[in-house]
């Protein structure tokens, strides 16, 4: 039985089940397809958020470059879809048929070498995982082995996000430039633009999201997760105890990168394009905002944070475009100053105790209230 195993304690199980009910039943049944597609778009950021919970909340490594990995995943998927969309039949008006339209506009006559692997879907799926993974590994190995951390790591990852954006915008012939890769149509001949396809993609995404949640929970509960917390609190003691701090950090950073890349790939499928505006510094910091609002220590918090902030963003920018940035900025300052552990902190501090009291008054001496196994709340 799940309740007795240590994988989820009771409150986490309630969180898991209620999130599943919300995402699998309530939202698909109550929203029309346009809104559901918006929810799907918001949820792609939840993948990044879960990665950030592992790497920032638990590992203490604040990366301001998650947009890089989100973008790499998204671009890998977009390259595959673009190649499929630019078959010879679709592009016969171009001077060189059979290559993506923006390459034709930029006087390229053949598909460049690094685009070639993306003719094959299995290689694309592999690339979505491996390219960001290797990239994160290189960055992580170069930095953590030299004990670069904290603020410096944040600034350097931010610089990398800036570099990649400038590169993508500058190399228009190879990347589509500032417009990104647009006009994506089919996946193996299956039109991804129809309402039906969007409905199915939503469920694919939610299943993947739960896969990520379970993977993150697994990492959190193993010894590895506890070493991450120990490292965040007292890095030197962990090092003196004989653990290789750098390797654990690299692992957390790579895991976060891969989660972000999966989110990016799903983003391309849901929204139908990918552009540098999801790669740079601003989107990267916004992704950190979602996580901070949801609660940097809570996997479910990251999901709710992405949903709520993006929902608020859409609502506010639809009705009061002037106010949106004030709202976002104010929200951010408020979360940092008043609620460092975000929504999940408010829940755990104010709502959960009341529910517990309500339940325990009916059912005293409940056996299940033992505290969670690796509850990593930061020591005050």
């Amino acid at each position: 039985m799940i309740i007795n195993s240590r994988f989820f304690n009771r409150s986490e199980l309630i969180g898991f089940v209620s999130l599943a009910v919300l995402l699998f039943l309530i939202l698909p049944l109550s929203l029309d397809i346009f809104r559901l597609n918006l929810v799907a778009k918001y949820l792609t950021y939840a993948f990044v958020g879960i990665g950030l919970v592992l790497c920032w909340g638990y590992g203490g490594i604040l990366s301001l470059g998650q947009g890089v990995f989100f973008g790499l995943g998204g671009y890998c998927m977009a390259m595959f879809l673009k190649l499929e969309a630019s078959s010879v039949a679709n592009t016969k008006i171009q001077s060189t048929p059979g290559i993506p339209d923006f390459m034709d506009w930029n006087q390229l006559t053949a598909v460049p070498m690094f685009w070639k692997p993306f003719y094959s879907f299995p290689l694309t799926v592999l690339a979505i995982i491996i390219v960001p993974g290797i990239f994160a590994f290189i960055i992580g190995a170069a930095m953590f082995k030299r004990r670069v951390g904290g603020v410096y790591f944040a600034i350097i990852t931010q610089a990398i996000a800036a570099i990649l954006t400038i590169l993508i915008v500058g190399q228009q012939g190879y990347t589509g430039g500032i417009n990104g890769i647009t006009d994506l149509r089919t996946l193996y001949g299956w039109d991804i633009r129809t309402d039906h396809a969007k409905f199915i993609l939503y469920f694919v995404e939610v299943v993947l999201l739960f896969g990520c949640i379970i993977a993150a929970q697994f990492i959190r509960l193993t010894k590895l997760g506890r070493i991450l917390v120990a490292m965040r609190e007292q890095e030197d003691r962990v090092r003196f105890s004989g653990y290789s701090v750098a390797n654990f950090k690299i692992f957390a950073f790579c895991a976060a990168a891969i989660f972000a890349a999966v989110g990016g790939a799903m983003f391309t499928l849901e929204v139908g394009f990918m552009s540098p505006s999801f790669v740079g510094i601003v989107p990267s910091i916004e992704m950190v905002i979602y996580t901070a609002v949801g609660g940097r220590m809570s996997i479910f918090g990251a999901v709710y944070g992405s949903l709520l902030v993006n929902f608020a963003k859409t609502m506010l920018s639809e009705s009061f475009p002037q106010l949106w940035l004030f709202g976002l900025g104010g929200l951010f300052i408020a979360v940092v100053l008043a609620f460092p552990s975000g929504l999940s902190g408010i829940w755990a501090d104010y709502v959960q105790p009341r529910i517990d009291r309500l339940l325990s008054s009916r059912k005293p001496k409940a056996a299940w209230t033992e505290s969670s196994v690796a509850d990593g709340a930061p020591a005050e």
Partner: protein
Amino acid sequence: MFGDYSLGDLGAILAMQGFAGLILFSVYVLMALGLAIIFGQMGVINMAHGEFMILGAYVTWMTSTTVQHYAPWLFPGYFFIAMTLAFIASGSLGMLVEWAMIRHLYRRPLDTLLATWGLSLILQQAYRSVFGAREVGVELPDWMMGSWQATDSIQIPINGMFVMALTILITIAVSYVLFWSSWGKQVRAVVQNRVMAGAVGINTEKVDRYTFGLGCGIAGIAGSAFTMIGSTGPTAGQLYIVDTFLVVVFGGAASLLGTIASAFSISQTQSTLEFFMSGSMAKVITLLTIVAILMMRPQGLFALKVRK
């Protein structure tokens, strides 16, 4: 890419581009000086630094239009008034921000990054609401236009030399204040050990507030200089913030000399490369070089030897 030029041409190109990079260098130095005080000395990551700079730029623009309308005889010297006003405006906003927000966060440096990012969003939208989304530019007085013919092939713009001289003056003043005045000693004492500094009678809260204000004020002056190289828009500050952080980190966070050296090398590399390739590739190569060097030497060029 160098093949088409003779050695003499290359020398002239380097010198010309070098002087063209002077204003960029000055903006970098002034931005980075403020940031080196705030980040290097206080440990606060001020992501809104670019917005403080833009505030200075807007003040300069307002001064220039006001002077043009109401006191045209003052126009040749308006820049000095504008700079003073920019310093005061950004500095006081900085002190207000320190009081309202930053002082609660000294123990959590990474959180200052997030909170000041929120502040920068608010300021950007405030600029957009007040000044409009369109970029504004200032007119320079006549004596700043034109250039000085050094040799046949080398021309040096006068406003570049002016801003350069100004930067040197401000740098000297800041290093005097920080390293020789008694207030500067108090600042460094507070940074090194807040509790002990308080125990020996230093008003740490006041020192913090004025230090932050000084850093932001210098950013305001950077904004004044910035009006000479680009037009001012609500989001222009964001373009510079990452570069500036890299300048500070590359130079070694706590070292003013390192900050100046790194601002010089970065701005010169970029403006020299810009002559040979597109601006975006020049920027990519410059940034990549910095990141690569930082990976090999994380403490920056001029690191103070400290025991951790």
